[in-house]
């Protein structure tokens, strides 16, 4: 699990968890809202550190294992820190038959990371996904919320450059 970035003093921990407290307002004991709470927490912290998960379990009156079970079930949730830019390479059917695999290989080569990994400078996280529903433009990748379509491996370096700055 990820390390708390805040040192160990009670004061800095409190500061670290302050945004989470705001998120949790109004959700106390509402177990059905676990998924939206996790989504909001991840938006805030970029991933789900152990301290955050513990706090959520407490607030929603769930056991840590229940929360951990949900976090690990859904592919959207992450227990490790993530890159500043998230690259999602679509390997859905349409992208698969139109060369999505080559696009993925090119990105791996450019960034020097494997599928699911984050670059050392925390700039990029590379993931492959099943389908992002932009099949008409296959092969496609998404970087953060931008979709890039009709790709070939040679277009990749220029696209990545835009996010390196």
């Amino acid at each position, binding site marked *: 699990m990820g390390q708390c970035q805040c040192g160990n003093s009670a004061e800095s921990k409190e500061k670290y968890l302050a945004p989470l407290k705001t998120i949790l307002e109004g959700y106390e004991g509402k177990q059905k809202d676990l998924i939206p709470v996790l989504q909001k927490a991840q938006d805030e912290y970029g991933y789900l550190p152990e301290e955050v998960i513990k706090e959520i379990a407490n607030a929603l009156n769930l056991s840590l294992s229940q929360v951990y079970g949900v976090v690990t079930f859904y592919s959207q949730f992450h227990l490790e820190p993530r890159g500043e830019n998230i690259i999602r390479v679509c390997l859905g059917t349409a992208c698969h*038959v139109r060369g999505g695999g080559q696009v993925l290989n090119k990105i791996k080569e450019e960034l020097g990371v494997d599928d699911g990994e984050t670059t050392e400078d925390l700039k990029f996280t590379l993931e492959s996904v099943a389908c992002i529903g932009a099949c008409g433009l296959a092969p496609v990748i998404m970087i953060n919320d931008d979709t890039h379509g009709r790709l070939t491996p040679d277009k990749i370096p220029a696209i990545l450059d835009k996010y390196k700055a």
Partner: protein
Amino acid sequence: MEQSIYRSHILVCGGTGCVSSGCKQAQDALKDELAKHDLTSEIKIVETGCHGFCEKGPIMIMYPEGVFYCELTPEDMPELVEEHILKGRTVERLLYTEPNSKKSIPSYEEIDFYKKQQRLVLGNCGHMDPESIEEYIATGGYEAIGKALTEMTPEGVIEEVKDAGLRGRGGGGFPTGLKWQFAAGAKSDKKYVICNADEGDPGAFMDRSLLEGDPHRIIEGMMIGAYATGADEGYVYVRAEYPLAIERLQKALDDAREYGLLGENIFGTDFNFDLHIKAGAGAFVCGEETALMNSIEGKRGMPRPRPPFPAEQGLWGKPSNINNVESYANVPNIIRDGAEAYKAIGTEGSKGTKVFALTGKINNTGLAEVPMGITMKEIIYDIGGGISDGNKFKAVQIGGPSGGCLPEELLDLPVDYDSLIEVGAMMGSGGLVVMDDSTCMVDVARFFLNFTQSESCGKCTPCREGTKRMLEILNRITSGEGKDGDIEMLERLAENIKSTSLCGLGQTAPNPVLSTLKYFRHEYEAHIYDEICPAGACEDMLKGYVIDEDACIGCTACARVCPVDAIEGNVKEAHVIDLDKCISCGACVSKCKFDAISQA
């Protein structure tokens, strides 16, 4: 509200496809250009939902003329405004060019892609501002729920939907009216309606398009379903991967509440109803109805055994009715125009239209809504414009990971629920992925198994272990290590997984393998016994390419395209490939006009 009269409207497609092709930039440039000519009070820009022709984005349609411009860039805008708007002359070079005749076609309706379509469910998509409730109402929106609430009983609504013959558009094809009847018959103080918008099938994006392009239609469909079944609360479960759909739906819900279309005493009756959005968190299995309900409840999205069915014990143990986005989108038309009009379209067992997502190696990718019973050939060749790059058709995959691959012999098959089941495929959500002779069918089967295996939730053994074992065999075959008996083992595992899995995911997971074995068995055999991938797609099996000396005329096309300079030879003399250098990329094969290059 201040209303201006505009002499012309420019509809700019703002669907996800066009957004990624750069429609925002084009639209900004258009705005600037209109301002420059002081035309902003005369010309209105309307950002619409998806036009379906994603291949050609960004798209703009000029009204009242109905001229269709495509593949636009910001640099085209000065000319477009100068010529089309100011001088009234069509800009020929920005029109759609028909791929076969090379003719440019100005009018929207005359483009082949749209000609054979019957856009009833997608009727508003691309023709109105999806964020405007007024525009939806102006096209007859919320008339159907008004009619249902004030002129019909819940039983009457159910009868109408049953009579129309609407079947579930999400995959199974279960009669919608019957489903409603079960939920209506359940006795409870609380009932729910749920819309399944967890469109997870790779290759399908019609639900996304509907939510982005016509969100009020889904709300209205759900309201009618709620009235018929006696529910007062609803959920729309949308994939988290669809942020624009969630945003537009949220806006639609807020507007509907403000107009009193959601809330209490709707249309002055005692019908109360409100809706919530739940964003998924990335799990394909949540498209299964009972898993989806677990996910709404905040749990791991694992399916529950049925019975009890959701109509008896669904969300939080209460009777619940769950339908797919496209199913709900059909409902307002049925109630407003009546079952008779609805069932005039379609075949004996499948009524109405179906939206297909055309993708893969096809010229016109996009969304097409066609009457049930149209042939696959018409969809692929007339609407889809045939196979891209002049290649040869090999197969069409229909129904996503639950469906099957159909060969050329079945292209004349009229497409409906029952005909597809008969040939070993299924309607599924309507994704059509076209494949040409460079696609390996064993690799396609492996692709789908890899998908279902990683998405299997792990609750039941046949799906968890069985798909893993099948995938291992397919991985071996596609890496050149297949052995005698593999095909038989795949068939045995497939039958067992189909008949013993808990939910639809496992029960249909073997379909891609079974259908490719049925129609493309020779490709499996070639991999196992001849150690060759006929399509040249399985990288591990490629040993490089060779040139047939007699067929080669020495045109040098192959040598020029080779990325590693493995091909040598003089002009007008037979060329030779150095197998030590060859990386089996296949670039030379696609360039050779004389069929002189083949696998070593």
